[in-house]
């Protein structure tokens, strides 16, 4: 067998497309860009395919969770097929494994994928050869939603004279906010002697290793306020059988950001709104022509506190209106967290003998007394029973009887009542 000749090539690695899954936490308000947000995951997939074609990628790797298990429209599958067909027309093969979300997806089972798409088996590790590129992709799909075995361990060793890639949906040794599926370790992966590990499952981009390259590209499109920053795919350049560049390319259509506005220098609410607008403008520049979904926190000890607290609703409406006016459909304010504090000395206030001092002292007591907090919880008990299960589960769950939540409420009351009583309602 003579020396293998290598061609320079690029390939694209993406994961966790979750096509057509809803973006979470976006409350509709006047002027909000509803339609654009809803189609964001499809837009990101289109961007991915266009990038493959523009970059003349040798192939595309999809490391699981193309679909979200939870959605039900067949058109979602057909949309994916149509995009894959664009790649077929451009003669770009696609290799994919199923992840925890689409393992059981009946859509995937029912789909007739174009012949350029190869789905790797879920029964045992499969090695798929891309002869033109002299590449072998090793991988195994999830056969069930829950996969607790170390799939990587059973992957074959690298094949000689070929560029070896491991395609795997995994949480590796555990990642916060992600289910511990197909756990494995860097050692296990390194031991296989592959050139590149194309991982999926963890939504935050992460390069676990450069020798060999072990990469989570992150999801293609952020879907809620905790998936902030640029989202997209990894473009890998290979020359003479060695990786020369690993580039992360933002392909998201909507960009989630979390912004904190420091209100401490502001004398009134209008100044706070101005600062928030400046922060949004900066984030908007960074996001380019993407839609910006922003979560705003207004923080700091400020003279504007009493004004803001007096009517938080009005303040948030003003902020939203400022965003609509300044950025139109380019910005969606997902949520505004008002966490401002008063400038006066709370400790001193608690020493006063009058009614306000009494209230300040009592609130301080209530905050740290579980039985007092329980009494507060009793006020909310009736509503809690009526809240939908979705609100009480998962990430960002809202538990009205949770002491931390109750403490937050009492702190909020402290920052609302005391300044109002001291400074008047104006």
């Amino acid at each position, binding site marked *: 067998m003579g020396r293998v000749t290598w061609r320079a090539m690029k390939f694209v690695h993406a994961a966790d497309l979750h096509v057509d899954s*809803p973006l979470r936490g976006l409350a509709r308000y006047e002027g909000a860009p*509803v339609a654009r947000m*809803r189609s964001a995951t499809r837009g990101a997939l289109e961007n991915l395919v266009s990038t493959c074609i523009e970059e003349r990628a040798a192939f595309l790797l999809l490391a699981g969770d193309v679909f979200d298990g939870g959605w039900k429209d067949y058109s979602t599958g057909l949309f994916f097929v149509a995009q894959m067909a664009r790649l077929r027309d451009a003669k770009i093969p696609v290799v994919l494994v199923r992840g925890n979300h689409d393992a059981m997806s009946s859509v995937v089972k029912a789909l007739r994928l174009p012949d350029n798409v190869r789905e790797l088996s879920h029964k045992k590790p499969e090695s798929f050869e891309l002869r033109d590129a002299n590449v072998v992709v090793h991988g195994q799909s999830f056969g069930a939603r829950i996969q607790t075995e170390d799939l990587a361990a059973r992957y074959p060793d690298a094949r000689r004279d070929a560029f070896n890639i491991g395609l795997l949906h995994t949480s590796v040794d555990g990642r916060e906010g992600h289910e511990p599926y197909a756990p494995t370790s860097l050692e296990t992966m390194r031991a296989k002697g592959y050139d590149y590990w194309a991982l999926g499952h963890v939504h935050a981009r992460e390069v676990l290793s450069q020798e060999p390259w072990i990469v989570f590209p992150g999801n293609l499109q952020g879907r809620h306020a905790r998936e902030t920053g640029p989202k997209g795919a990894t473009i890998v350049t290979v020359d003479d059988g060695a990786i020369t560049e690993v580039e992360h390319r933002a392909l998201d259509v909507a960009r989630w950001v979390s912004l904190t506005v420091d209100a401490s220098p502001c004398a009134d609410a209008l100044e706070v709104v101005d600062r928030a607008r400046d922060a949004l403008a900066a984030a908007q520049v960074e996001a380019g022509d993407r839609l910006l979904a922003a979560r705003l926190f207004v923080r700091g000890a400020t003279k504007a506190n009493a004004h803001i607290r007096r009517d938080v609703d009005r303040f948030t409406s003003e902020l939203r209106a400022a965003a609509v006016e300044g950025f139109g459909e380019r910005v969606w304010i997902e949520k505004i967290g008002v966490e401002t504090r008063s400038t006066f000395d709370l400790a001193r206030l608690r020493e006063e003998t*009058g009614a306000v001092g*009494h209230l300040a002292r009592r609130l301080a007591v209530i905050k740290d007394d579980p039985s007092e907090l329980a009494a507060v919880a009793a006020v909310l008990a009736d*509503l809690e029973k009526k809240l939908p299960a*979705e609100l009480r589960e998962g990430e960002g769950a809202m538990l009205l009887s949770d002491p931390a939540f109750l403490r937050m*409420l009492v702190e909020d009351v402290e920052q*609302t009542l005391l300044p109002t009583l001291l400074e008047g309602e104006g």
Partner: protein
Amino acid sequence: MRIASLELLAYGPFRNLTLDLEPAGLHVVFGRNEAGKSTTLRAITGLLYGIERSTPDAHVHKPADLRIGGVLVSADGKRLHVVRRKGNANTLLDDRGQPIPEEVMTRLLRGISEETFRHAFGLDHDALRRGAEALLQGKGDLGESLFDASVGGGGEVQRLLERLEKEADDIYRPRGHTLPLNEAIKSLTEAQKAIKEKQSLPEAFVTQEQHLTSLRSDLEAKAAKKKELAGRRARLESARQRVPLERKRAQLLEARAQLGAIVANVARLSALRERIGAYDVNARARHELAVEHDLWRERVALATRRAGLPGAEGEGPPRIDVKADARLLRLVGERDRIQAQKKTLAAELERARRDLARARETAAAAPPEDTTALARALASARPLGDVETRLAEGVAKVEKKRRDLEARAAQAGLAAIPLATLASCPLPTLEQIEALAARAAEIEKSTTRTADKVAELDAQALSLAQQIAALAGDFAPPDAAALREAREARDAAWTKLRVEAAAGVDARARVSLETEVERAVRTVDDLADRMIREADRVTTLARLRSAEATALEQLAQKRAELDTSRASRAALERELAEAFAKSGIAAPSLAEARALVARVASLVAQLAEVSDLAHETEQLRARVERVRSEVVAALGVDPASRRSLTDLLEDVGARIEIAENRRREVEQAKKQCAELEETAAAREASIAHEEASLADVRVRFVEIAAPLGIAEDASTEETTRSLEALRELLSAIDKRSETATKAEAAAREARAFEEDVTRLVGELAPDLASVTPREAASELVARASKAETIGRDLEAIVERLAALGAAEVPADILALAADGEAAARAAEELDAEIGELEAGLERTKRDIMSAELGLAQMRGDSLAADEAAKAQEALARVRAHVERWCRAKVAATLLAREIDRFREENQGPLLSRASSLFARLTLGAYQGIRAGFDDKDKPCLLCIRADGAEVATPGLSEGTRDQLYLSLRLSSLERHADVAEPMPLVLDDVLIQLDDERARAALVVLAEIATRTQVLFFTHHARLVELAKGALEASHLHVHELGARPALHVADAALG
């Protein structure tokens, strides 16, 4: 802590102004508007907590230069002198200007924040009003009231609590439907339901696809089956049609064979059909001709008899020609016309004779009346026109004008004088009155001038008298004797001095003497000076008195002149009265006299006009009377009759017309008589002429008519009938011979036909030899026709068989077709089967379409994903609303709970003190207050009246509510002073609403509180300062007036 002094070193409009607040008692700071009261209030907060960043008090001094100083004394007696400057850091300075830590001040303030100091230890009129209003709104909720009084919010707490509760309720209520949170939960549930409903499961898609495939193959199978059945059905139909045709063809061929030679000679026999017809017609004609011939023979006999000719059969009647015929008829007509003409003429003659008799009678009747006199009377009346109306109008007009004048005269006050005598009334002339008026004006002018002069002189005299009085006074100018006496005294003194000096007196005596000399000299000098001065005064007095005398003299003269003028005026009035005396009219004033005379002149002029008009009217009346007598005479009526002239003239007209008509009638009758005589003569001549013509006509008629057997006197009708009978007879003879000729020709034709038929029978159908030629001919034609029909039928059958095609029909079908009934049944069955298949095909096509549509929809729609997005949106809304609701709800709940708790802890001491303060502030109108319960069992405030009655807060008057709130605030502050470091209480114009008595009571209460904690009472009402001074002992009151320099104290420290 108390403020011992407040130093406004450089603040607002002040520089180096110190308020000494050290002494015990109530400090009243009084500043009128613009005096700087508000600035001073701000200075207190500025000193303790720092000067506001955007202070309005930097308008005189630059912000960096602002300084407030003060001496603060803590409860334990420690004194601290500090100066506050404006800035961001190190703003607290010691008395050397060095920064000192802020903690020093903080310690002194013992934890009282700026906001608390301002709200809890400061009270102004607005806050008081708001607090009292909140007592009313909250219906005196005890906890809220005590809490609010402690916060010093002026009802802040009640409003805040209400707002929070409303905020929570506006977001969510357990049974709300339209509230935002309730609605968001509902939208979420709906969206989740919709996801389930709208999802398109992949399994469903695949099932649908498979279903579609099976539908398509089913469709193909059904189509194939249908095609096969349709083929079989077509073949059966073809067989069913062919069988009877074949059968018919065989029958036809058989029938044609039986016809033999006829078949080949159809063409020859075709002419025979027409000849049979002609033969039949001929036979009928022959029979008819025989009958006709008999008929004509009888008719000739009859006509001969009718024409009245001898019945000789052989010889015909005489032939008459058309000319003779016409001539005979013309003569009869001529005879009739002449006879008629003669009759007409006779009738006309008779009428003319009757008319003539009538006309002659008319012409002979009575002659018409003579109308000359009537015409003359009419002629003289015509120029007058409608004279009676004009006369009546004239009279009325004169009457009206006269009445108008009388009314005007009465208006002018001339009622007493009859109108007729007005013209001759002896009034003064206008010129006389003008002359009097001119004189009166002159007198008036001179009187005014003199009166002015008198007034002037009066004033002058008065002024002089006053000056004289002023100068005169009681003065006694020293006289020369006094001067002399003084000089002698001086000389005596001087001599004594000289003598004593020469004698050598001691120094003391000498000094005494010298003093005496000096005094004497001064006395002389004084007297001389006074004499000079008084001399001037005497001169002036003399001058004034002379002037006064002159003025008085002139005054007397002018007054005399004035009297003269007034007398002249009276004389003039008398003259005027005399001028009017003769007229009998009361003398008017001079001014009115002119108008009166003018008015009388105008009345007189108009009176003359009325007289002229009355005269004209009288003349008209005379003319009318003249004409009327003329008419009466002409008509010959009773002269006493009072009928109007117009009526009389109408009678005249009528009479003239009647006479005229009568004359015209007579003339007409005469003319008619002549004409009628002429007409009668003409008619008689005509009648004679007609009789001659008639005789001639009769002769010519007989010439022609006699040979024809027509009587000489036959009438026109008879002549015509005779001629007709003759013509009929001749015609019947002609017809008879014509019929005989026709019968002969017909018999010849019939014989030729019979011979031809006999020949054909022998040749083509010998079996017919025994029948008549007519029957044989018919049979031959029938046979030919039959042969022809068979030929055509055969051709048609051959053609249809050819159309059915030469295709092979399977034997089984042919066999089936042979049995008609079985074939029909089979065809029906096949049709039913095909129909069912077609319906099935339609159904399957529809199913395919709907399946395809469903698949297309599943491919394109992302309804469930849309709903999922909606659900997420709703969820986000739920989350946001829950947060907001929890915040508001918890805030409201905790605030309400803590208000209660605060009440429980503080109620006792606060209420008892507030109660006694309230009793004092209301001057005993109320005994006090106590805690009670409202109708919802919530603790509330109750006020107890002097008579023991309890009143809830809404029942209090506005002023009393203010006092209740003030009591609560003051008791709350006292309580603070009891348990913690006292702080100065700053009141700003809180008593302005009270009447004097209650304000006084409040000031006494404040002075009492001032013994325990410092009270600074700011006001811009001087009245309150007055009240305080009256109500309080001087040692308990310290008034500081701003903007009034003398009352201000200048800080020594600042000056140093």
